[in-house]
């Protein structure tokens, strides 16, 4: 095997590739859904997609942990339950940004590490992820969190270098996909490489938001009793939006429902948020995080913590962009650092 793992495809030919990808699976790509929002939606051709998007409101985690799902249905008389069969429909997620790819890598650890969630692993195996490079907007700070570049967790990654894309192969599945559609791709030339270097330089220079990460964890720890939590807690609506749009948040709630026959019913799992009042409530009535300030402190600390040297936040900017109260996550941490007043 001497085949290169770097290729080039022209923008013109990309639509053909998109068309060909329909053999691989149902294609989901970022589609503009409102003035400010994009969403990963099913598309027939890539012309429906907006590949220049900044972010989708709901991250691609929705394909792996459904916002709402039935875990199983039960029958009390028969004393049995039936797990919801895993969905095995092959998917192609086209146009995923590096922050979201890195977030999925971290999410997979939670779902596959100590207790393997077969549903999650099957869904990942049935999914082809095609990443795409992006230009930061005023909310992006993924360069600070070290998640602005995808090293793994994708099949192919497309770097926009003008009228063409430089394509990186991230997995054997991606390699085979390239082989299958080899005629659409060509080898990388010196000129392509030069364009790629320029594009990266330009991308890295265009970040306007940044956050120094070094020592942040200890600063957070020492700021446990800081008045900053009250200050932002008062502003916070406790609506849960920040968590629900976060590509790394994975809290969920489980609830049972029984039918009127008092025999059959189902157990459901739904996304949840640590900003909601009952997140830390235990039976008997004690709430470990009863106030908005305590919950906000918990959220910011959770995001600011490290998991195997990766921050729990990938710098996508969603929590700030979609906060109805206009709370800026980075601003809180900059205050914790003493970088701003």
């Amino acid at each position, binding site marked *: 095997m001497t085949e290169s793992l770097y290729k080039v495809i022209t923008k013109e030919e990309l639509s053909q590739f998109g068309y060909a990808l329909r053999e691989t699976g149902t294609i989901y790509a970022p589609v503009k859904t409102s003035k400010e929002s994009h969403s990963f939606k099913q598309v027939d051709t890539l012309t429906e997609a907006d590949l220049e998007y900044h972010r989708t409101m709901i991250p691609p985690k929705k394909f792996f942990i459904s916002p709402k799902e039935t875990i199983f249905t039960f029958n009390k008389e028969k004393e049995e339950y039936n797990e919801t069969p895993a969905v095995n429909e092959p998917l192609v997620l086209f146009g995923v940004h590096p922050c979201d790819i890195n977030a999925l890598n971290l999410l997979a650890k939670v779902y596959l590490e100590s207790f393997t969630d077969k549903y999650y692993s099957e869904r990942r195996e049935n999914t082809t992820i095609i990443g795409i490079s992006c230009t930061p907007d005023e909310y992006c700070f993924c360069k600070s969190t070290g998640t602005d570049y995808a090293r793994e967790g994708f099949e192919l990654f497309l770097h926009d270098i003008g009228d063409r894309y430089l394509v990186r192969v991230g997995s054997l599945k991606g390699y085979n996909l390239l082989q299958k559609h080899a005629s659409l791709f060509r080898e990388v030339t010196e000129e392509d490489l030069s364009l790629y270097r320029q594009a990266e330089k330009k991308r890295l220079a265009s970040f306007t938001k940044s956050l120094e990460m070094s020592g942040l964890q200890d600063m957070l720890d020492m700021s446990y009793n800081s008045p900053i939590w009250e200050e932002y807690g008062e502003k916070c*609506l406790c609506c849960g939006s920040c968590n*629900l749009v976060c590509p790394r948040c994975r809290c969920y709630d489980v609830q049972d429902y029984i039918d009127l026959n008092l025999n059959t019913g189902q157990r459901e799992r739904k996304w949840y948020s640590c900003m909601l009042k009952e997140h830390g409530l235990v039976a008997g009535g004690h709430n470990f995080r009863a106030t908005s300030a305590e919950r906000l402190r918990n959220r910011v600390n959770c995001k600011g913590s490290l998991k195997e040297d990766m921050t729990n936040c990938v710098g996508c900017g969603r929590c700030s962009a979609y906060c109805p109260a*206009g709370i800026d996550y980075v601003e809180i941490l900059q205050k914790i650092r003493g970088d701003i007043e």
Partner: protein
Amino acid sequence: MSKPKLGIFSLTGCGGDQLQILNMEDQLLDLVSRFDIVDFQEGSSRKVDGDIDIAFVEGTVSTEHDLKKLKEIRARSNVLIALGNCAIEGCIQSMRNGETTLSERLKDVYGVEEGFFDAKLSKPITEYVDVEFSIPGCPVEKEETLRGITSLLHGDSPPYYSYPVCVECKLNEYPCVIVEEGKPCLGPLIRAGCNARCPSLGLDCIGCRGPVEGAENFAAEYQMLLDKGYTKQDIMNRLRVFCGELGDDFLGGGDDE
């Protein structure tokens, strides 16, 4: 085992919550067959005295007659459930409480003094009696009401929504009308359970399900709307419709500039 006795009562209100129960056409026969219905004004002329296992009460207490009726129901009932926003928060009838007096209103509308009618200042039933549970909404959601009744039959408490509408907007991927359009949406304050019906149509939440239990974020919502350019009067008018009687104390002293 004999069937539990169920009563569904109306005080002052539009009767829309009882109507929602009647609207459960697919489950209605199954539902009523599980109970001995002792009172259901909109569904049956049959009325039976005596103890009630589960009583639903909709509407506000707006007359002395309402109050007497409510107290009688409470005394007869093992479990009493406030059904709908009127019974829980007072709804539209109570929206001007604290702004104008009853006699002013009687004079304005009917040209009579207080005492001419049997009228009282409209209040939710929760002002006068303890209720075991409540099912919110204006009107209540059919499915939530059915689930509530089913849970009670199952010996459990009705499920309730401890989180706001925003959660349902996100679960359904509805764009945020506050963030994107600056609309005065009350979603962050208001109990979920409607599956974000209004935002799904691009409309801002007007709060018909009432505030989340123990909502601590009124002041934050108020400040946010002030910052977006709404006046104190705009905001108060909006909140008063379904959020019950509001003093200015929760606002944390925000000025209307």
